[in-house]
């Protein structure tokens, strides 16, 4: 379990950045003209693609897989959920970003919990 404040701060910032960026872009790109399944699929893949440069930058400062895993999961899920929501109702960019952050932080908590469960174990 990571206990160094610098890296915990880095993990939080990375997940917030990934969620906010992906959520904002999906809210800007997806409109009610999109069929929902297409919007969700596009959101997931575009979210991942958008996250790659952000993740590369965050990895330089905060670590490799510990940063990549929550950021990529955040971008996939935030992309999918915000795109789905934006295909149903018009969504302001700021609201999309907020949705992304609200998805990213629980995902980070989930990866911390999963890591605590798996730490030390091996096969």
């Amino acid at each position, binding site marked *: 379990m990571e206990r160094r404040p610098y890296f915990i701060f880095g993990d939080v910032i990375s997940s917030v950045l990934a969620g906010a960026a992906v959520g904002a872009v999906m809210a800007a790109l997806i409109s009610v003209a999109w069929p929902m399944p297409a919007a969700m699929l596009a959101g997931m893949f575009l979210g991942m693609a958008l996250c790659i440069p952000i993740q590369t930058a965050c990895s*330089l400062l905060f670590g490799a*897989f510990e*940063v990549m*895993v929550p950021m990529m999961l955040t971008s996939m899920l935030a992309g999918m959920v915000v795109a789905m929501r934006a295909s149903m109702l018009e969504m302001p960019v700021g609201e999309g970003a907020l949705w992304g952050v609200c998805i990213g932080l629980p995902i980070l908590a989930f990866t911390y919990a*999963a*890591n605590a469960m798996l730490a030390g174990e091996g096969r």
Partner: protein
Amino acid sequence: MSTSKARKKWDDAARGFDFMNSRGPERRWGPLKREFFAPMQGKVFFLAVGTGLDIQFFPPQQDVVGIDFSPRMLERAQPRAAAYDGQIELRDMDAQHLDFADDTFDQAYTSCTFCSVPDPVQGLRELRRVLKPGGTLRMFEHTGSRWFPFNVMLQMMNPIARKFGPDITRDTPANVREAGFQDVRVRNVYLDIVRMIEAA
């Protein structure tokens, strides 16, 4: 991927390797790597040395032979090897075809290596061949995950990861067993993705 293509990929990556890895990843893993390398003793084989970032974590006064199949990586590793308080010989060599006699080394170390060796089982068989009977293999590696959703995400990311660097889905503990190592112990460092593996 062929060995020549893999060599070219890592030669190309050498220039930006330290920039990408020397701050975040190495600082994050630094304490663990120091602990990982601490049991070094006897004639030690380090595969693959890369730009030598890991040398800072070696305990002093060791006798190490480090190899890499990327000449550009080795060029960058040279000053770090020269500054080490001990002996490090660097050689340009392919992990799948080691130019050492059987039973040469007491210990072998790898650090994020077997994500990139084109034929990992062949490379591990070679490692086993050059280790003395009773010698130990210690690995700090990232692997695929068997847990959802991490396994799905790594599978989706892998085509991009492989284009610019390592394979992120390999089952390295299984490869170690397939190569003939008997006593294989695994300790997870991050999820079941970053792991320390010890085998004899």
